[in-house]
């Protein structure tokens, strides 16, 4: 490794981009929203976001009424099976949806330094500034996200130039710094073409590129999916360290529960375009309240502990064009009652009187039978001493230490 992270950041002080890189927010004046109601630490506040794709058969309801608050330095993991709409949701947050997709409802309010704008309504200049300067997205496939015919250095400079950092020398210096930060041999990697780098290296290059303009929010779409175990570990450890040091908020889109368990503060289970449960990482893994979350947890093998038989969530994900009546999970749900068919349950706090918007300090689930589901779930995990205890006690014990 070339120098410590701290020295890489603090070393030359290039990390905080000079103010002239900041486009004036005035271009976003028409989209300015009343931020006074937003708590100061909230960087992204999403309400009722709804996205649909137009296809020949009708409208694909890919994202339905999604709301959440994301705080500074917080990591939110969006967990769900493929086709659940989690990537569409992420793309909508940076307005990168394909043309066939339409945001039909909702707001995405971004806040920095007490000023807030609705990302869905800002003009093109402000949008360009918002993307990458404020909110960067790291795409799923590290090979496809890089231009194969340009050296890594040129791709960094491209981004820098597009976002107002016109001095080439500064951009190069910053590129090298960031590549060091993600533990790469900076000089060599900057001069390489993407095909000369391994999958893990490319993923780290993309993470570095995401950090180029020091954004407040970073969205990572399946950051470790195509990587080998040891490389995956490097990327996870890197992300954890970066987020502690840089205090950016992270949105993690993944089907991998283990990745969420590693990195997330908040976890949202996404099913058929909706957040069906959201809570702290401990809530979701040890005290799940939605049958789908329980189903996912019961379908993932672990390395430690006793052997336990696992079962998959039965059935298939629903057709997003023609959703089932009532709760969309009903056809697969072991807890279903006639009530579930009459009405689609809202996301409500599982603690009486708790906040019903997903975010720090709330645990919400969209299920009429949440208490029954929660009661039926018991997960055993092993403590350091090797004795087994039911999980809630274990976490309480650990909290007390």
């Amino acid at each position, binding site marked *: 490794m070339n120098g410590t992270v701290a020295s890489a950041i603090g070393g030359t002080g290039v990390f905080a981009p000079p103010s002239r890189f900041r486009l004036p927010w005035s271009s976003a004046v028409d989209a300015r929203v009343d931020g006074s109601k937003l708590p100061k630490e909230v960087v992204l506040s999403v309400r009722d976001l709804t996205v649909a794709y137009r296809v020949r058969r009708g409208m694909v309801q890919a994202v339905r009424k999604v709301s959440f608050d994301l705080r500074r330095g917080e990591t939110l993991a969006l967990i769900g099976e493929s086709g659940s709409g989690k990537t569409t949701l992420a793309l909508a947050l940076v307005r990168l949806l394909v043309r066939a997709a339409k945001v039909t409802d909702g707001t995405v309010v971004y806040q920095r330094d007490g000023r807030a704008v609705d990302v869905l309504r800002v003009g093109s200049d402000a949008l360009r500034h918002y993307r990458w300067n404020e909110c960067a997205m790291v795409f799923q496939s590290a090979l496809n996200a890089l231009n194969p015919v340009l050296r890594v250095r040129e791709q960094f400079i491209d981004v820098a130039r597009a976002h107002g950092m016109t001095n080439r020398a500064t951009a190069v210096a910053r590129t090298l710094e960031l590549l060091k930060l993600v533990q790469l041999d900076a000089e060599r990697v900057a001069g390489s073409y993407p095909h000369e780098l391994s999958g893990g290296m490319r993923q780290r290059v993309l993470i570095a590129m995401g950090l180029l303009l020091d954004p407040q929010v970073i969205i990572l779409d399946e950051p470790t999916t195509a990587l080998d175990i040891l490389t995956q570990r490097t990327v996870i450890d890197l992300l954890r360290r970066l987020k502690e040091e840089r205090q950016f908020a992270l949105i993690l889109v993944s089907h991998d529960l283990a990745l*969420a368990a590693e990195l997330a503060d908040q976890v949202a289970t996404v099913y058929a375009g909706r957040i069906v449960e959201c809570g702290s990482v401990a809530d979701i893994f040890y005290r799940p309240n939605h049958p789908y979350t329980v189903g996912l947890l019961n379908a993932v093998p672990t390395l430690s502990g006793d052997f336990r038989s696992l079962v*998959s969530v039965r059935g298939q994900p629903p057709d997003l064009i023609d959703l089932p009546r009532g709760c969309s999970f009903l056809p697969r749900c072991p807890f279903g009652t006639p009530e579930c068919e009459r009405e689609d349950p809202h996301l409500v706090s599982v603690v009486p009187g708790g906040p019903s918007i997903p975010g720090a300090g709330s645990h919400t689930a969209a299920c009429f039978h949440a208490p029954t589901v929660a009661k039926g779930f018991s997960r055993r995990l092993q403590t350091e001493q090797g004795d087994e205890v039911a999980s809630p006690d274990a976490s309480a014990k650990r909290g007390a230490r």
Partner: protein
Amino acid sequence: MTAVNARSVDSPTSDGSHAPLITLENVRWHVPTPRGLVKAVDGVSLSARDGEIVCLVGESGCGKTTTGKIAAGLLTPTSGRVLYEGRDISSLRGDDFNRFRRGVQLVHQDPYASINPMHTVGATLSAPLRRHGFAGSSSAARTRAAELLDLVDLTPSKDFLDKYPHQLSGGQRQRVAIARALTVEPRFIVADEPVSMVDVSIRISLLNTMLRLQRELGTGFLFITHDLALARYFAWGGRIGVMYVGRMVELGLASDLVANPQHPYTRALLSAIPEADPELTRRKTRVELRSLEIPSLLKLPSGCTFHPRCPQFETGLCEVSVPQLRAPGSTVAELDSSNVHAVACHVVARG
């Protein structure tokens, strides 16, 4: 505990003699390329008895898929032998060779590529049934195809017979691929990452189906995966072999290998795997490697190929000679004795 848990290594169909059904003897797959000799598989020995489950685990490029193809007879090793029922498969001719072909089947990784999109499920299954004489007429083939679909939990099977692959999900396609492997009533199936393309929520049900086949039909499996947690689940009661750049570095009973890993590489892998349990996964102690660089197959390190990364590296020992796969404390190299926990490491072997 559960039926799955009670699975024994000895299958009910084995004749008690414990003669392996299939044996790889020191197989190598060396490929000359313009840039040099690639040693994709370098001296792997492995055997499986009737009905046994063996998992091969390793990172991409470690040679696990190549080993699987060699076991299925799709690649002829550049040296070493593959024995089926004790006979070298390269010497089998005619009916004997067909018996081997029927006896060992392969399920590929990608069900989107391995099934002909122009054929219905029924046609896909009928072709091998007719070709290998398992069905005398097309209606008999259709009946048998329906039975096979029931067997892999594609029910009601009548609904699936006339479907085309594009009408099926990834998990359903993989079930068709398994049913196709079962048409010729194999005794051993090489499954190469069969669930990696399948969604998490239904992975387990596919594995459970395969485990049921093992229990009910006595079919053995060589299960190739990069996911140790899946391997542990699938091979519970069977064995896991860990491969690293072309060599087997550790081989043992699944439960034992995961709970009590010996080789520094296995230990590093196990400590690096994130687990779906926040407390557990954040508390794990990591085994730090000396280098993150995976060696190039064109320029493998001398001696133990893991030595440049190994935290237990000892100068004058590890880079000098190649460690043999053997049980700790034993001086004889274990070709493959079934219940021994064997490790290829100088430091571990010394005790």
